[in-house]
């Protein structure tokens, strides 16, 4: 305990030296997750999930647990890999905390509405696509904004920190102002209070918001492809392969379709692979 406390102090003292070593040392290797699961008596898999995103990962206060599409997929995958869905442990993450957490080794995998991108591949590996979303705009019903083309220098778009959505807006509507907030509920509160003219993120998440808040609509068709993947730290190829294999299995045996229809009854089950 004392060492844990003292170390940060010491490190602050030795700032210049640490800085040099931090630049050179890179990432400390994690224990192989597959090996850990093989030898553990209770083979837990720790998943990083959202807790503020309706339909994907939302905290159910009465039950004291997080529920959603991502959670059910994670449970199904855990069952395939370890033999029981009860071995799935869930840790709440935000767009901002999820990559540091997986680098940190606190979680084994991220299944949290995370888009596969080249930039992120420098940090983590991705599984095959498990959900195909696209970025869209959420506006009040009476808004003049009909599509991404209507964004200009006079409009402010609300996005969530640490997500790709702000970068996409910069590409598709370079004129528009962007304000980045901590999480979806704060971004939506900001939209409700007129801090911005539109909120942007993946259509699937926006549909979850509309589901609970009538008076808002999507503006136009999605302007990007946002394939969601499960993120796993570099150097965990064995675990990544197992997750991909399990994903294939649940798609083939109909479990995936079942979970999809449970959360998106209106939508058609997509063809993955």
């Amino acid at each position: 305990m004392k060492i844990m406390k003292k170390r940060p102090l010491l490190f602050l003292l030795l700032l210049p030296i640490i800085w040099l070593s931090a630049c050179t040392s890179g990432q400390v290797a994690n224990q192989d997750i597959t090996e850990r699961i093989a030898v553990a008596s209770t083979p837990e898999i720790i998943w990083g999930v959202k807790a503020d995103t309706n339909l994907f990962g939302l905290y159910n206060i009465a039950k004291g647990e997080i529920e959603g599409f991502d959670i059910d997929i994670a449970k199904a995958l855990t069952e395939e890999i370890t033999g029981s869905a009860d071995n799935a442990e869930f840790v709440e993450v935000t767009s901002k905390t999820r990559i540091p957490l997986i680098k940190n080794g606190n979680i084994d995998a991220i299944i949290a509405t995370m888009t596969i991108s080249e930039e992120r591949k420098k940090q983590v590996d991705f599984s095959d696509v498990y959900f195909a979303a696209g970025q869209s705009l959420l506006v009040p019903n009476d808004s003049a904004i009909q599509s991404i083309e209507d964004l200009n220098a006079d409009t402010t778009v609300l996005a969530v920190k640490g997500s790709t959505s702000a970068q996409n807006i910069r590409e598709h509507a370079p004129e528009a102002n962007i304000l980045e907030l901590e999480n979806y509920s704060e971004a939506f509160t900001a939209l409700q209070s007129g801090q911005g003219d539109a909120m942007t993120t993946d259509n699937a998440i926006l549909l979850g918001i509309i589901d609970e808040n009538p008076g808002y609509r999507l503006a136009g068709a999605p302007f990007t492809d946002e394939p969601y993947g499960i993120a796993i730290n570099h150097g965990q190829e064995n675990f990544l392969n197992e997750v991909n294999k399990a994903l294939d299995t649940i798609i083939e045996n109909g479990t995936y379709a079942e979970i999809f229809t449970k959360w998106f009854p209106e939508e058609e089950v997509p063809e993955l692979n």
Partner: protein
Amino acid sequence: MIEILTNYNDVLIEGFINTLIASLIALVISLIIGTLLGIFQVSTNKLLAGIANFYVQLFLNIPLLIIVLFFYVVFPMFFVGVNGFTAGIIGLTIYTSAFIAETVRAGILGVPNGQMEAGLSTGLTYGDTMRYIILPQAIKIVIPPLGNQFINLVKNSSVLAMVAGLDLMYYGDLIASETFNTFDTYIIVALFYLIITLPLTYLMQYVERRLAAND
């Protein structure tokens, strides 16, 4: 580290300036409000003293973040929308005023009772005694703690980052999540804060020593 500085120097400087502006505005307004509240607290007018005490006891004991979030989240539901920067400044001002009021009150009470009696006995009114005798002496007592309040204010202004307040911490956080080089980014942000707070700290220590030497 050099890379972050060269690639992001514009946003870092913008954040640095916003942090300074937010701190200065909050300082000036909370000095005025805080001083008035501090004087009210020791006033013989029961109503004024009651209101001032209520204010101080309320805001001394509620986290700054809650006050800022209140203005950011709740305020717009009834009045007008405020952006994170403004909500942050309002929250900082309300919060810091309570601390300054406490400092001022302690400063006034630090002046011996006899001074007030002496002032009144020479025919001065309560207000005049306060203004010409008590407050000038109290100022000497409150300068060092007030300096500390300003340093706290600069540090506390980082709460703006939690409401997209475009301050140094907000941009630092953004750079960290874009570059993933959290370590170097936070060291740079730390250095920027120290540029403001360290000289202030040493200045206050110097002032404190000078005041002590004058006694």
